[in-house]
């Protein structure tokens, strides 16, 4: 359920749409930390993340009239952020090949031999999971990040992407299935390594 925008939010949005940059600045101030945190998490690079957040804000200003309030402002901005990231990767590196997962498992074995411990294991698991998400096709990656990382509901994702809720459900299902299969492959690689 999307929390209804407050009167102050609506007023700021209306002012920003009329070209009031200080109103837009106030709106973005509230979103920056969350956007930056997400960008750092999926790009793995602080400077790239800062560039992405900057490009996202510029793109948001240019297309503010297209934001109709049918989803949360953060969800709308997050979609822009994901697309800026996708554009920054270019065609060649949009998907992570399985070979990279194999390399990651090999590297992980070396690290685990050197640094045993729960925290390191959690970090490795997180890195592996994010690498697996990166290896998904863009449309699947998008719904996974929106659903689980931006915490958007399926209907909100549908509105933010301009697709039906059924398509969101379907993409989520296929994305989760692919992630599960990749995890199984990784587990198999781990077992065969021991």
């Amino acid at each position, binding site marked *: 359920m999307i929390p209804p925008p407050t009167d102050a939010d609506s007023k700021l949005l209306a002012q920003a749409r009329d*070209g009031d*940059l200080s109103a*837009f*600045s106030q709106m*973005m*101030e509230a979103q*920056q*930390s*969350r956007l*930056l*945190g*997400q960008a*750092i*998490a999926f790009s793995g690079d602080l400077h790239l993340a*800062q560039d992405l*957040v*900057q490009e996202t*804000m*510029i793109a948001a*200003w240019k297309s503010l009239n297209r934001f109709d309030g049918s989803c949360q402002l953060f969800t709308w901005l997050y979609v822009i952020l994901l697309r800026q990231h996708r554009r920054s990767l270019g065609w060649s590196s949009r998907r992570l090949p399985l070979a990279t997962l194999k390399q990651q498992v090999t590297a992980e074995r070396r690290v685990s031999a050197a640094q045993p411990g729960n925290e390191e294991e*959690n970090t490795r*698991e*997180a890195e592996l*999971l*994010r690498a697996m998400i990166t290896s998904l096709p863009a449309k699947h990656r998008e719904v*996974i990040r929106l659903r*689980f*990382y931006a*915490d958007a509901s399926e209907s909100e994702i549908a509105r933010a992407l301009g697709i039906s809720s*059924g*398509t969101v*459900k*379907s993409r989520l*299902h*296929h994305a*989760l*299935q692919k*992630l*599960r299969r990749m*995890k199984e492959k990784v587990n198999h690689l781990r077992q065969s390594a021991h």
Partner: protein
Amino acid sequence: MNNPDPNHHESHAEMREALRHDAARIEEPPFNAALHYATIRQIRALSATPRTRPVWKWALSGVTALALIWGSVAVLSESEPLMRQNHRDGNRTAGTASRSPRATSWTYRQAANRSDETLLTLLDEDARALLTPTAPAFSTPFL
């Protein structure tokens, strides 16, 4: 596109849990004022730039192209009597082009899309194909 069976959600419970767990690990950095205000300054600068700039670019490219074509025609029409005279005198007109320009209006448009410099280079190449190397166009700037 086939809609998945809602019961399949159960089979992805472990993966959903792993994703939620990972999302919860993401830390939000403190507000970066320098980044924010640099972005706002950039937006202000972009807003101050007239949006009609591409149209101006087109207009400028068009005017440049027309000026060059007009100049080439003018130079050709001026040099033609001289060339005829040279021919009558039995002198060889060194380097007089007999070829037609290589570019079409489409390639001119493509070049203009790329940049003014590309367009000017193309026009220059064609002018060199059409005119004598000693033509005034190569020694006197048109613009």
